[in-house]
């Protein structure tokens, strides 16, 4: 706990500066898109949020597997603390995507595969929180939370691959590992900075949330009284 506390201000301010600089660069210093006009600038807010929401679910899945196999209590505290933050990031991704859809596609909601799967991810995050809170915070609740996270992780490949498998309204990936990016380089750099900065900010939120969860669950131990 103490090393993280010492490093926390650095992570926070560094990621905040990166994020704000990238957003500023993306909003004001990049040229206008030929097809979409100026509304494409929402990409600097929408892409990091959706990327982080899927990565947070993968992190929850790995932590749940660690809990089920090795019975490390800290893992399940991490799973329970990531769940609300995942819900917030998925909410941001859904809202920014809908508002971006109004000038681009003419409608703010389409029933195509990737959008519906992201909505399913949001509902799964909320269901995880409600399932864990309906028990009285004992070992049974932790086991069920981990199992539900693992079973629900079938949704993540569907989100990632749905734009490849079915031709839908949502555009396919512009940044892949193997090919030249389909987006112009001038617009690509603020996107990278934005993703890195947003990741840092969400890491800070996860650290805060885990601190809250650990203090709440280990209330009766003696080291908590000394720490607080």
């Amino acid at each position, binding site marked *: 706990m103490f090393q993280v506390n010492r490093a926390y201000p650095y992570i926070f301010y560094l990621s905040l500066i990166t994020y704000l600089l990238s*957003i500023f660069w993306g*909003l*004001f*210093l*990049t*040229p*206008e898109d030929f097809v*979409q*006009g*100026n*509304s494409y*600038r*929402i990409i600097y*807010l*929408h892409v990091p*949020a959706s990327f982080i929401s899927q990565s947070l679910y993968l992190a929850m899945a790995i932590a749940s597997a660690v809990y089920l196999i090795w019975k490390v209590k800290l893992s399940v505290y991490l799973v329970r603390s990531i769940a609300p*933050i995942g819900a*917030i990031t998925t*909410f*941001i991704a859904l*809202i*920014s995507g809908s*508002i*971006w859809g*109004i*000038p681009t596609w003419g409608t703010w909601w389409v029933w195509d595969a990737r959008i519906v799967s992201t909505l399913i991810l949001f509902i799964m995050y909320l269901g995880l929180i409600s399932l864990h809170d309906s028990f009285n915070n004992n070992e049974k609740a932790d086991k069920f939370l981990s199992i539900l996270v693992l079973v629900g992780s079938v949704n993540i490949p569907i989100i990632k691959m749905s734009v490849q498998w079915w031709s839908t309204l949502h555009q396919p990936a512009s940044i892949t590992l193997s090919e030249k990016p389909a987006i112009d380089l*001038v617009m690509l750099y603020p996107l990278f900075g934005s993703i890195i900065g947003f990741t840092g*900010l969400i890491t*800070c*939120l996860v650290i*805060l*949330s885990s*601190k*809250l969860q650990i*203090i*709440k669950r280990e*209330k009766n131990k003696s080291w*908590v*009284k000394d720490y*607080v």
Partner: protein
Amino acid sequence: MFNIEFNTLAEALLMQSQNGQNHGIYVWSVVLIVTLCISISFIFYKYKIKEISKKIK
């Protein structure tokens, strides 16, 4: 490489594109929502930690 796209504040608020549409309201509303969400989350978690620390003391 770095040339500022919008010259005045009014232009930056409206973000008019080549075909004359004003996209500023969409971009700025998304910026507002994202900033609100993230700042409220930070403030909420810090408040909860303070509250539970007070209860333990």
